[in-house]
Structures are given as C-alpha cells and as structure tokens.
C-alpha cells in the first residue's frame, strides 16, 4: 500500500474516532460519517488498487481485461456506501429527536432509553 494513502486514511480514522468519542451528539454522527468513509477506503485499499481501467467487460469481449480493477472490493464498498448512507439518515433524525427530548446534546446524559436502575435484580422501567 502506498504510504501516503495509508497516512491519509490514518488521519481520517483518527479524526473519525475523536469525533465519535465526542460528548456532542451532532459531532458523534458526523464522526460516524467520517469513520464510514475511512473504513470504506481501508477495504478498498486492502485489495491492491492501481488499475485505472474500470471492471466493465467491453462490448464483444467475454472477460475482463487483465489490467482491470478488482471488482470484488468495489462491490463490497458499494454496498457499504449505500448502507452507511441509510444509517446516517436514521442517526441524524434519531439524534435530533433525542436531543429535543432530553433538552440537551450531551450523549452521556441522553439516557431516556436506559434509565438508572432502582432494583438490585429487575431492569429499570421505561417511563413513557
């Protein structure tokens, strides 16, 4: 792997982790987006990128040109992009809803789903 690519991915991952570990709910969601992009790149980079030729079989041919790019990681990453997109769409709305319900944006204080326990054995009861 080209060292420069690795360096760029490292920075993106580190920033993504920093954002995800932030106490602010919006930064957390943006961090998910950054971490998602970086992860896609790791998968992509792991499969020896290099060839410029797309993995498309030319008209009349029955197989890929030898120098074509590897289609397998592309398929994986394509799926990951689509699912990551859906996840972020959901997370954005969930975050907004929780922030409004809780009246503040500190993720560690948004505990509506996991209220503190009052019984030594039984789980806490969710308040409606």
């Amino acid at each position: 792997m080209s060292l420069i690519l690795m360096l760029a991915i490292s920075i993106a991952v580190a920033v993504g982790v920093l954002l995800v570990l932030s106490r602010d709910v919006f930064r957390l969601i943006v961090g998910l987006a950054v971490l998602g992009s970086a992860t896609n790149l790791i998968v992509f980079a792991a499969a020896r990128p290099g060839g410029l030729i797309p993995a498309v079989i030319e008209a009349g041919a029955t197989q890929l040109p030898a120098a074509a790019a590897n289609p397998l990681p592309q398929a994986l990453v394509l799926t990951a992009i689509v699912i990551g997109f859906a996840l972020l769409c959901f997370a954005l709305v969930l975050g907004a809803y929780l922030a409004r319900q809780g009246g503040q944006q500190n993720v560690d204080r948004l505990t509506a789903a996991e209220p503190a326990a009052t019984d030594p054995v039984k789980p806490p009861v969710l308040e409606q």
Partner: protein
Amino acid sequence: MSHASHPESGGSTYLWLAAVPFSLFLLLTWGLSRHALPWQLDIPWIPSLGLSLAFRVDGFSAQMLALITGIGTWVFVYASGYLAHEPRRGRLFVVLILFMLAMVGAVTADNLILLFLFWELTSITSFLLVGFNHEPAEARAASRQALLVTMGGGLAMLGGLVLLGQMAGTWTLSGIVAAGPTLANDPRLPYALVLVLLGAFTKSAQFPFHFWLPNAMSAPTPVSAYLHSATMVKLGIYLMARLDPAFNDLLFWEVMLIGSGTVTAVWAAVLALRERDLKRILARSTVSALGTMTLLIGLPSAGAGLAVVAFMFAHALYKAPLFMVAGNIDHATGTRNIDQLLGLRRAMPWTAAAAVLAGLSMAGLPLSFGFVAKDIIAVAKAESELFTLVSYATVLVNAVAIAVAGVAAVRVFWGPLELPRNQVHEVSWRMLLPPLAIVFLGMEFEFFPALADPLLLAAARSIAPGLGEVSLSAAYDLEALLSATGITALIGLLFFLAWDRMHEALHTLNRFDRYGPAALYDRLLHGLARIAAWHTRHLQHGRVSGYLQLTLAALLSMGMFGWLHTDSRLELTWDWPDHAWAWAVACLLLVAGAAAAATLRTRIAVLMASGLVGYGSAVLFLFAGAPDLALTQFAVETVLVVVAASVLPHYGTAPLQQEPLRASSGVLAAAAGIGFSAAGAFEQSAGEWRTRRVVRSDQPGRGPWPQCG
C-alpha cells in the same frame, strides 16, 4: 366457588376435538389388527447431519401410543367439561393437541435427533400448559421450573445421544440398541450414558430432579392427568426401557437405575405424607411410581421388562382417573385441602365410585388391573437378586401407595360432610364419564387379562427380548397374591390410619428443605439473575461514550491479537501510480476535510467538512478504476448534506462547544488510526498472495479476477 351448575358460557366446548385422539386410536387398533409389528418409515431430511424422518413402531411404542391416544381421548372429553367456563380454553386445546402429536412423535421416532426434537417439543408444550393460568406468580414459577429442569436435561440428553450415535456409527435408536454390547469397552460410554440418563431422570422426575412435578400441579387438572401422570413423565421411563436391552449387562447402568429408582420411590413416598393438597399428594405418589419403574428397568431379569410394561399400563389406568377425581372435587368444592374434605360421597356419588375403583387398582387390591401388575412386579423382583435394603424399600413404597389410595378414594368421601350441603354438588357428565370409563377399562383387563396379553407381551418383548412364554392370565394366582400382598396391605392400612400423626411427625423434615435440590434450584436461578443484573449494570451504564470506548478497545485488541498470532507483515512502499497527482489531490481533500471537521464550530461547516472526506474518497475511487463507486459516493455525500441540512434546525443554532481533548480519546484515536490503516496493509499482502496462487492454479491467460456478468 363452583361452576358446574351454571349454564355454560358461550362458545364451543370443543368436545368434538376428542375425535382427534380417538381417530388416532382407531387407526392404531386397525393397524395392529392388519399389519405385523414393527412398522417402519424413513424419509431422508438432512442426511449429511444424520437427520432423517425415521419412525419405527414396535410393541413398546404401540403400547405407549395406545396410552397416549386412548387416555388422550378421555382427557379431551374431560377437559371439555372441566374448562367449559374458561374463556381461553381454545388456547389450551390447541396446545394439548400439539402436545399429543409431539408425544406420538417422541415414542415413534427412531432417529436420535428426531427423538430429541419431539422430546423438547413435549417440554415446551408442558411449559405452556403448566403456565396456562398465568396470573398467579407461583404458576409462572412452576412452569418455568418445569421448562428449565426438563429442557436442561434434554440438552444433556442431546449430548449423550450424539455421543452414542458417534460411537455406534448409526443415528437410529434401533441401531444403537443392536450395537449396544459392542460399545461396552468404549471409554466414552459412561459419559454418554450419564448424559442420556440426565435427560431421562429430569423428564421422569427422578431424584434429585423430583421437585418440579408437584409444582407442575398448578396446571389445569386435565393437563395433570394427561401430561404429569399418564404420558409425558413416562417418556424418561420409555427412553431408559428402550436402551435397556443394550446396556442391561453394565454394572454402571444397573447401579444408576436401581439406586436412583429406589431413592426416588422411597423419598417421594415420604414426601407424599407431608402434603395436604390432594393433587400434590397424587403427584408425589406419581414420582414414587416412576421411581419404581426406573428400579424395575434396572433389574437384570427379563421378567422385569414385563413388570415395567404392566405397571406403566396399570399406573396410567388408575392415576389419570384419580387426578380427574381430584379435579372434580376441586371443581365442586373449590378446595383440594384434605383437611376440609370429608363425606363427599353424599354429594358426589359417581365421583366417589370412580375414586374407589381407581383406588383399589392403586392399592393393588383385587378387582383391578393394579392387582395383576403388582403380582408381576413381585415375580420380577423375586427373580432378581436385590439388596435387602431395596426389598424393604419396596414394601414401604407399596404401603404408602395404599395409604395414598386410601386418602384419595376413601378419606375424602367417607365420614360426615363438613362443607355446607348447598355448596357441593356432582359435576357434569363430561367430567364423570372419563374417570369411570378408564377405571372400568382397567377392571376389564383384570377379569380378562387375555385382552391385554397381546399388547403388553409385544411391548415387553421389545424391551426385554429374552422374555419367555408367559401370560398375564397365568400370573393370576389369587392365593399366592393375597399372602404376598397381605403384609404390605396391613402396613398400608396403618399408614392410612396414622396419616395425620405422621404428617405432624414429618414436620421435623422442614428444616432440611433449604439444603434440598429445590432450594438449590432457587438459589441457582436467583444467582443467575444477580449476575446478569451485576454485569448489565457495569456494561450497560447508559453512557454512549463508554460503549464506544469499550467497542473500539475490544476491536483494537482483537486486531492486535490477530497480528501477534499470524506471520503477516506490513507491506508499505513509496510507489506512486501513474496518476499520482490525482491520488495526492484525493488524499489532500481527505485530510483537509477531516481536519476541518475536527476543528470547526458551526454545525453546517462541520457537516460540509465531513462531505469533503467523502468527496476525497470519491476522487480516489475515480482514479482507481471504480467510477461506479465514485459516482455513488458523490451522489450520497451530496444528498446527505441536503438531508442533514434539513435536520439541522432541530439541533438548535448555538455553536458547538470547544471540547477538551481527553487522554483516553486521544490514545484510542491514535491507536485506531494506525491500527486500522495498518490492517488494510496486512490484508493487502495476504490478498496478493492468494490472488497469485489463484492465477497460477487457474487457466493461464485468464484475468486475475473472477468473471462477472
């Protein structure tokens, strides 16, 4: 609280459902008259796992089937009367039918895994039936206990069956039995047998798992009569008897069965004396009877096979009616406490008649099939050399059985009626006919043992191949019987008369209850809940950042573990592809976007900065032969920014707070940055190695990647 005199509440009473077991019963008798046993059926299901729909009906299975469908028919009739006022009765009937089919499957399955499936299905349906009246907490606890104990045992049994299957190289029960003697020297055999016996002992409530059956009496009475006396609890006995021809010679097997059977029979008999609840008394005596059956299976003589079969048959024919009697009393008076029940014969003459006749059979007195069975058992025991202790134990057990029969059949019906006369009344015909019918069936077999001969002898030969030419009729020797059972009957009579005094005396046993297996079960369950609560408290504390830190740390240490345990190495180069400028631009975009996202303070700016990271990777895709990815990434990032922009108002307009860089976050971020990107580099070397191999082994000239399209 009585219901029977009220007009029936609306809806069907489901009496017609009794046609289901009855038609199966007719099918069975028709089959028995036309086709010789055994019947076999084998449909492959998942052959690679040794799983096939293999069924085999021999004499023993046929006897079990006769009990399941025959008693079942009357139980369904009884239930339609007993539950006439229960609004949720439809649910009970569905589960009851499901249970019956599971039982039919369990006693006909020849494949080990199939047997396990049906076995567990009976446990699940038993759970649903015991917990049918789910409002009282005790009923829920009882059903959960029945489920956990029998399912736990079932799981152990699965392990044992798989071990047996591997040792014998066959997955059929009949194959295991045939291969039995050759397995004797296998070192795994004791483990396999202990596991299988765990399943059988839990199902048939053998010591130390005897505690679940009395608690299961919170089930509606038709269920107790059917599952917990006549059929399901005999499943463990069924399996042990099935396997007995293979392992009868093993001292280990003999000691386990005779030991556990004797302890169960005696201990349950003692515990029966401690109960005041009629149904619980009957349940304890059922456990005692099951112990006797286990003991009989353990006996090496061939006559013991006949004894098991006859006793099982007799027990079902008297215990099911006795449960129905208890249910009638409960239904008519609203109580099952024997202290409040006296002189019921005046109000419930038909119930009393059924009780007396069933009680005769249970006590092994003349005029009943129990009389015949008791004699066969005596013969079987005489054939085998028993420890003296075991012989004494059986006398005690029989005496208690007589006393229990006396309590259930005589005590509650004789004497002055204690309850107000207008509170007690006879129950409907649907609840009277079934116990009377079953009891008369038993009497018929007593007067004409030849009627039961073919069924019972065929059954006995299936589990005791060495059985010679005998006949139940031949065993019927009045004079010998009377002298043999006379002394037992005398002790039983003493027990019956001294019931209340012994009950008082046995109170001293209460202090040992907290060391018993039932207490151990409670402590285990409670401990499990405490551990779960403790670990939930510490792992699910509600702090999102804590969750993420833990997840990331776990992921990183897993990666580290993988790195230390493989010989993969980093493969890093300064090589630049031809279009290096494009990669450089992409990397620049990526880094700039990341840096901006981390430092900017307005939400919309942070959002667009994160979009920049996406655009950077899109550019990279574009110049790495993945224009589809690039297009998708561009489109997704654009739409995401649009979407997020419309959500932003909900997050408010205040700028983001400057956050101090926490040491833990910094360390995790650095470790993740290095670790995850390095993981990509490792994968690359491994990936290249594999593709090279594929290219070499594949046809030369083909592209390095598999074809698509």
